[in-house]
Every structure is written in C-alpha cells, then in structure tokens.
C-alpha cells in the first residue's frame, strides 16, 4: 500500500515530535558556498561540530567564474564566499571539491555522476534544485540555511511529511521533444504553485524510456511547480548509470545494494494523494514567454491572450509580458534573440551537449548571437573532449567555458544585459534572474541550438 516516497521517508524516521514534524535522518548533505556560510558560523557560535562529517560534501558552484579559474576570483564577495567554504570544509574535515578539482562542478551534476547520490537515500542541500537527485530514486529536497545548520549539527532535519502526487506520462515523445520539454509542459499545465505541498513521483512509459540525464532534468524542474521534490523509481537504466561510478558501492556491496534498490518502487496498490495523467504524444518543443516557468507553450503556439487569463491574474500577467516586451496573442517564432545559454543543473550534462551538437554540427552560429556554452562539471567537460563534441562546437563558432552555474543566476560575470533576450536551458525566467532587466526564454538544448544558428526563435524540428 506504500508509495516509494513513504518507504524511504519511513525508513529514515528517527522520531516524531508529538503534534509536530518528523525528525528525519539525512544520508547526504551537499553544501555550496552561497547558502552554507551562515550555517557554519551558526554552528560555531553554538560551539558545535558537524556530527557526521563523512556524509557531507562541499563544492563551490554558484560564484565560480567560467574562465580563468586558475586565477583569484576578481569579485571580492564571490571570492570570500568560495574561500569561506574551503576554510569551513578544512576546519571540520569535510570532503571539498574546490575550483579546478577534477570533481568540481554544479552540485546537482556532480552528485549523481560520481555515485554520491544513490537510490533510497535522503539527500538535502541548501538549494531548491536538490530535487534533481530524486531521479535516481532518492528522497531529495532543498532546504534553507537554518536547516543546513540543523543537519550539520545533528545529521537530521525536522520536516512535516508532504503529500504524495504521481504524475504519469504515457505514450511516446516525438522527434525533437526532450525531457526538458516534458518538464516545461507539465509545469505549464500544473502552474508554478500546482504541486505545492506535494512530493511527486514520475511514472509512465515516457519516464521509463527516458535516459538518466533526461530524468535528472525532469526531477530538477519539479520545484518549479512548487513540489517539495520529484523522484523516479530506480530501474535498469538507473543501475547501469551507477555501476562503476566512483562512490557507488563495489563488488559484494554492489550486490547487497542492488538487492535493496530493487525493492524501491511504489506498491501496485499504493495510494497517492493526487494522480495526474499526461500523454507524451501531446508534447512539442516548449518555450517560455513570461517571467515564471509556468508561462510556457509549444514553440509554434501563440502567447495566451489577456482574456484567456483568469481575471485575478491579469495584472501580474500584463506586467510579466511588459517586462518581456511581448504582446498577448502573438507568435514567438521568428523573434530576434541575443544570447544563448547552454548549461546549468537542468541541462548541463553530456546528453544536453550531444543534443546541442547534433543540431549545430557542420553549421555556423549566427554572428549576432552571444553564446555561453558551460558544462555542468569538469567531468562533463572531459566527456566533451573524449567524444569530440568540443571540436564540433568550436567549428560551429562556439567557445566552451569552464564549469559552474554561470548565467543560470548570473552571480558571476555571465550576465545578460537589460532588455536583451536569452534562450536559456536553465530553469528560471524570473525578472532579473540572468542579470538586471534580462529577458529569459527557457527551452531545451535543441531549441537553444536552433536559436543560436538563426539568431531567432526557431522550431528545432526545421533544422534537423
């Protein structure tokens, strides 16, 4: 009768506060430089140390520049945050993948690719896109800095149990439709608050046939419809992905782990608080036209008219379109764009680069477009070289930058200027997200590639 979420949650229950939240044991705490310093200083102020340092992994990603990482970071505050993380990790004996470390990169890319994220785990990080790790069948969710301090101090967290939702996507995806499009489609249907209070399990044919990279992209975006997290039951695709990864169990431990992992699925008669069903055949390449990830549509569609928006939402809707410089009811296809960003914890993995490269191979970037091509980690960067993707991109006029969050939130120098349009493979199109006044259009790596080639919003299926 239990859902996968219930099983993992219940297995990590340390105790329950009467009339209150659950004290949940945490298997992995990931720390980055932005949301951890205050937690460490709080810990120190209490005279405490991390209770289980071996379960904590630290790496800078938000502030890291995407060029000249061997030099000191120019921006003083960025430098302070990055150095503070290194010092805290050193002081407390925590694993730290600093800048230029071969395992450095965006936490949500690094965790899975090194086998640090495993099925059945509870995983937290002071970052909302921690939901990414659920793709391997773990319960993973973002927390605030006070909660990071909690986990540092006690390896536990106080949480009230969310409700469960299953989103099933059956059918199959057309050519040119990727995991990112599935995610943007779901969010557009659910709205940005539509899964608030829920933990989502994704199921159905489309999910089952999705690669691990695709699943990571999908779970990554769960938070954009308000969900606490998203997860996918582990299967052969998961196990194949994990086998041989550095921190994954080895030899006899692997067999023990596999025996356990195979039990990790929702029972046939499991009851979810909410069930949602979509058909994969209905999905086309998506693009957002507004200032939240729920404002997305099929790339060939028209922006919804004001009349089609519920009355209470019209003021925000108009404000949003005004910010974007678009009119209700108009087509986006053919509109000029200025920047393209391939990267982030949503689409900074090898498969995303393969997809991008498949479209631009043998062609040339439009000279008016500035493109930031940013691998999610050094590991991904090495894969690009091994597969010769770097050459394809360079020949097409793209330069590959050094790994990090980059233009996803523009904490480093990679900022989109005010009023300019960026087709971005990241996860947020909020006002000012990619720089003050920047206009972000979220889309898949294929849509980004098509835009980079033409300088306009283009249906990637016409370039394939």
């Amino acid at each position, binding site marked *: 009768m239990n859902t996968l979420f219930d099983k993992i949650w219940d297995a990590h229950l340390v105790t329950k506060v009467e009339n209150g939240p659950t004290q949940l044991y945490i298997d992995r705490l990931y720390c980055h430089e932005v949301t951890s310093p205050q937690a460490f200083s709080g810990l120190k102020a209490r005279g405490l140390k991390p209770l289980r340092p071996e379960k904590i992994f630290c790496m800078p990603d938000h502030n890291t520049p995407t060029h000249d990482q061997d030099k000191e970071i120019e921006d003083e505050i960025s430098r302070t945050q990055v150095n*503070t993380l290194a010092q805290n990790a050193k002081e407390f004996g925590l694993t730290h993948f600093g800048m230029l470390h071969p395992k450095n990169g965006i936490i949500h890319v690094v965790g899975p690719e090194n086998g640090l994220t495993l099925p059945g785990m509870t995983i937290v990080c002071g970052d909302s896109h921690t939901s990414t790790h659920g793709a391997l069948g773990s319960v993973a969710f973002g927390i605030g800095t*006070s909660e990071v301090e*909690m986990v540092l101090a006690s390896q536990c967290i106080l949480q009230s149990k969310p409700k469960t939702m299953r989103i099933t996507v059956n059918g199959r995806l057309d050519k040119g439709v990727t995991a990112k499009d599935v995610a943007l489609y779901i969010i557009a249907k659910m709205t*940005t*608050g539509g899964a*608030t209070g829920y933990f989502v399990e994704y199921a159905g044919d489309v999910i089952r046939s999705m690669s691990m990279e695709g699943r990571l992209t999908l779970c990554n975006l769960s938070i954009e419809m308000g969900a*606490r997290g998203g997860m996918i039951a582990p299967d052969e695709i998961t196990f194949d992905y994990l086998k041989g990864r550095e921190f994954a169990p080895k030899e006899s431990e692997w067999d023990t782990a596999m025996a356990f992992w195979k039990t990790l699925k929702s029972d046939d008669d499991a009851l979810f608080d909410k069930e949602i069903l979509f058909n994969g055949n209905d999905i086309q390449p998506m693009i957002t036209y507004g200032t939240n990830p729920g404002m997305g549509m099929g790339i060939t569609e028209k922006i919804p008219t004001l009349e089609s928006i519920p009355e209470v939402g019209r003021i925000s809707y108009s404000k949003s379109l005004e910010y974007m410089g678009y009119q209700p009811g108009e087509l986006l296809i053919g509109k000029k764009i200025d920047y393209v960003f391939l990267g982030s914890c949503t689409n900074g993995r090898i498969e995303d680069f393969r997809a991008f490269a498949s479209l631009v191979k043998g062609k040339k970037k439009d000279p008016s477009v500035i493109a930031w091509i940013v691998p999610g980690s050094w590991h991904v960067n090495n894969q690009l070289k091994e597969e010769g993707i770097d050459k394809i991109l360079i020949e097409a006029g793209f330069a590959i930058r050094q790994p990090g969050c980059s233009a996803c939130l523009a904490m480093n120098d990679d900022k989109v200027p005010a009023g300019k349009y960026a087709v971005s493979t990241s996860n947020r199109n*909020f006002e000012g997200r990619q720089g003050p006044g920047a206009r972000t259009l979220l889309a898949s790596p294929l849509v980004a590639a098509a835009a980079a080639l033409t300088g306009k919003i283009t249906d990637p299926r016409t370039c394939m």
Partner: protein
Amino acid sequence: MKNEKFTILTSTCVPLPLENVDTDQIIPARFLKATTKDGFGDNLFRDWRYDKQGNQIGSFVLNDPTYSGQILVAGKNFGSGSSREHAAWAIAGYGFRVVISSFFADIFKNNALNNFVLPIVVSEPFLASLFNCISKNPETKVEVNLADQTVINTALGVSEHFEINPYKKHCLMNGLDDIDFLLSNKDKIEAWETENQQF
C-alpha cells in the same frame, strides 16, 4: 529578530497586492554574496525599491511614507522560487514579523518560521477586503493572536482562524530553536544509525 517570543502583534500593514512575488524579487541574487545574516533588510525588494542609480523609486510601497508597519500583506503565491533563506532574512531584517497572503510557497514558509517571521494564510476574500481597507485607510490595523491562531482586520472587525504547525507555534511562542531539540535526541540518532548501516 531571532529568539524573540511572539504572542500578540497589532500593527498597520504594508500592502503588496501582486501575485507570484518570487524570491528573486524579494532579494535579487546579486545580494546573496554575504557570509553573515545581517544587512539583508536594506536590499529587500531592491529592484522595485531603487532604480539603477540607487535612487528610491517613489511609487514603490516601501518608499511611500503613507504605509508602514510590521505586517506585510502580499498577493497569492508569495515567496515562490528558490529555497534561499536570504529572502526570509530580508523580510525579517526589514522589520516585518508577519506576512499575510492567501498562499505561500512551501520552502519560504518554513524559512520564515525558522527566522521568527509568521506567515499567515488567509482566504482570498479576507485578503481582498484587507487590501481594500488598507488602500482606503493606510492606518488600518491588523491584530495577530498566535495563541488563538486568529488574525483580525480591525477596520471591519472581521477575523479569521489560521493554521500553524503546533510544534512551530510552540517554538515561536517560547522563542525556542530546532537545533536544541534535535540534539536532545542524540541517543535516538545513534540508535537509528546502528540499525541502518547501508550508506
């Protein structure tokens, strides 16, 4: 703000009748670079509050002397977006102790409570009439009684019950902290670890 006991608060309100105010609006990412919790209040709603030259934008409500108080009244789905607690620090740092809306993003709600800011969910009609009262009379006061879990629009004398997790209520009313509680269970943490060795 921290560890201040919360019982009853009566205050005028600052109205922000916009929906889906996200954490990037509450505190833009470029202000997240600090390594302490201080000073975030100064940059609350930075890009709505100041223009590029750093001059106050007179039309924004925080710059309008007509409105003040320890209660922020906001449109639906307040605090969506990132998990960053900086948004809660900015709200707390500015001096708000209560945020009233008809809907909050989950993580924001938790973060607010962890910083002794009380997020209160009210019905859409209550919210609409509160906005209406405030715009007619900026002196409109709201009374929040945490013990009774009621919020009262004193202009109309209408009140509503609000929900809060009993544990959080206890913490807020007593100025208590989660970490003390968690560590008081250290024997249970160790017992769990002994039984569950897989990772």
